[in-house]
């Protein structure tokens, strides 16, 4: 774990110092989310468009770096096939902690248009990666991608550096089970064959 996390654990006794360090750390992690552009299909076009002249990602501090070692958030954009899944899992493991995953586009969220009748598409990358923000859309607009990154910042604020010490902040977005969602917890809904999250096991498949 990162050096400061160990410090955080040691300092749990003194919340005062912690909150100031915690605020600085959360702010810096939120402001400089360097993106690993895992673009496979159409969403890659929108990911590129998001960091260029009309929708400037650099403004939010998000800088696309091709090398997994230097990045914090892996933006999986596009259809993930069974053959590609091990490569993505491997790249995810190469990224240094604290790392986040954003599933951009319906193909990454749940297989999208390729959910039915295909033999080679992974139906949602949460089968082999722990996903933090799902961005629906096919492809989502660059602004919705930037909205996803802003939501990720909110998520980082709520998870403090000290383990077990999370400051419940007013979340802009509903989480599952929240009454506002106005519906029974979707897991029981027969129409959504939801697959449980298995972070470490790379996607199945003959390869």
């Amino acid at each position, binding site marked *: *774990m990162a050096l400061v996390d160990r410090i955080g654990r040691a300092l749990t006794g003194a919340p005062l110092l912690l909150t100031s360090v915690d605020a600085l750390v959360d702010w810096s992690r939120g*402001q400089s989310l360097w993106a690993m552009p895992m673009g496979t299909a159409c969403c890659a076009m929108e990911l590129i468009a998001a960091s260029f*002249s009309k929708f400037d990602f*650099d403004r939010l501090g998000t800088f696309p770096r*091709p090398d997994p070692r230097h990045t914090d958030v892996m933006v999986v954009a596009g259809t993930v096939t069974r053959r590609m899944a091990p490569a993505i899992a491997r790249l995810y493991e190469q990224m*240094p902690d604290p790392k986040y995953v954003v599933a951009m586009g319906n193909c990454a969220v749940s297989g999208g248009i390729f959910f039915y009748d295909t033999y080679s598409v992974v139906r949602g990358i949460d089968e082999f990666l722990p996903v933090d923000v799902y961005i629906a859309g096919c492809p989502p607009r660059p602004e919705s991608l930037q909205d996803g990154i802003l939501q990720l910042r909110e998520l980082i604020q709520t998870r403090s550096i000290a383990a077990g010490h999370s400051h419940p902040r007013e979340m802009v977005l509903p989480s599952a089970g929240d009454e506002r969602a106005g519906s029974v917890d979707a897991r029981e809904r027969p129409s959504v064959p939801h697959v449980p999250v298995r972070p470490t096991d790379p996607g199945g498949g003959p390869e």
Partner: protein
Amino acid sequence: MSGAAGLAWGVAGGLGAGSAIALAALFGVWWERKVSARIQMRFGPQQAGPFGLLQTLADTVKLVLKEDILPSRADPGPFLRAPLVVFVPIAVSLLAVPLSAGWAPLDTSVGALFFLAVPSVSVLGVLVGGWASGNTYATIGGLRGAAQMVSYEVPRTLSVLSMVVLAGSMRPVGMMAAWRWWWLPLTAVAFVVYIVSSIAEMNRGPFDIPEAESELVAGYFADYSGIRWAIFMMSEYGAILAASLFGAAVFLGGSHGVPGVAGFAILLTEAIAIVTLVMWVKWTFPRFRSDQLMALAWKVLTPMALVQLAVVGLVAAWL
């Protein structure tokens, strides 16, 4: 200087140079992202603080807190120490640069030679960093980096040599004092050669094949993460600052005889102009291929520097 005072002076100098490079990196990264954004018709960092000034602070704090990965295939000893081997020579070479008329932190009579010779040690860091991380790309990046930095020292030294001939001494402070305005048109070619070859020394701009993004993913620092990679970045921006300060001092006359802080301000503005030129060049031109790179060094820059030296020699003789 006696033992203890010398040691204290050394520690203070090292700390000063290190913090100068840290400041240069902080300002340099932000300035680079703003300049490249303007060229690409966008804004650059805006949200972190006014005009995005705190962006680099955020990046540094985050990088400090990142996990420091030691790849299993890497050879731990050289892998962990390579960034320092690259960082320290550049910090030391910064000391030899004259900061205002008549004063330089390390004022020696062979300052110019000292400034040009010491950074060549960082070639070792690049090579070792590339090889030690055990990654194919990093190895290729390291080899390319070594070949490039070694071959570009020749034109760089020759171009500074022509200024030494004109100024008559190798002491940077003296060269800055001896600078005349009519030297500018005379040594324009030397200045161009100096700028191009120092860009190559920094592995930046059209010469960044050691860490070519599109081919080798990230070149020799592919497997470094967190603080170690930040040190590589800081050394790169430190090299830019050093080359620009030295270039301003020697080629553009530095503080033009104004002592104290005002002199330093003039020197700094000229240096920032050169830094902007370096960044402008990086974001305009594509990248050389490694063989073209070598050809440019030996077949174009070195002859230009020699011709310049000959001309300066004649002028110095007639003078």
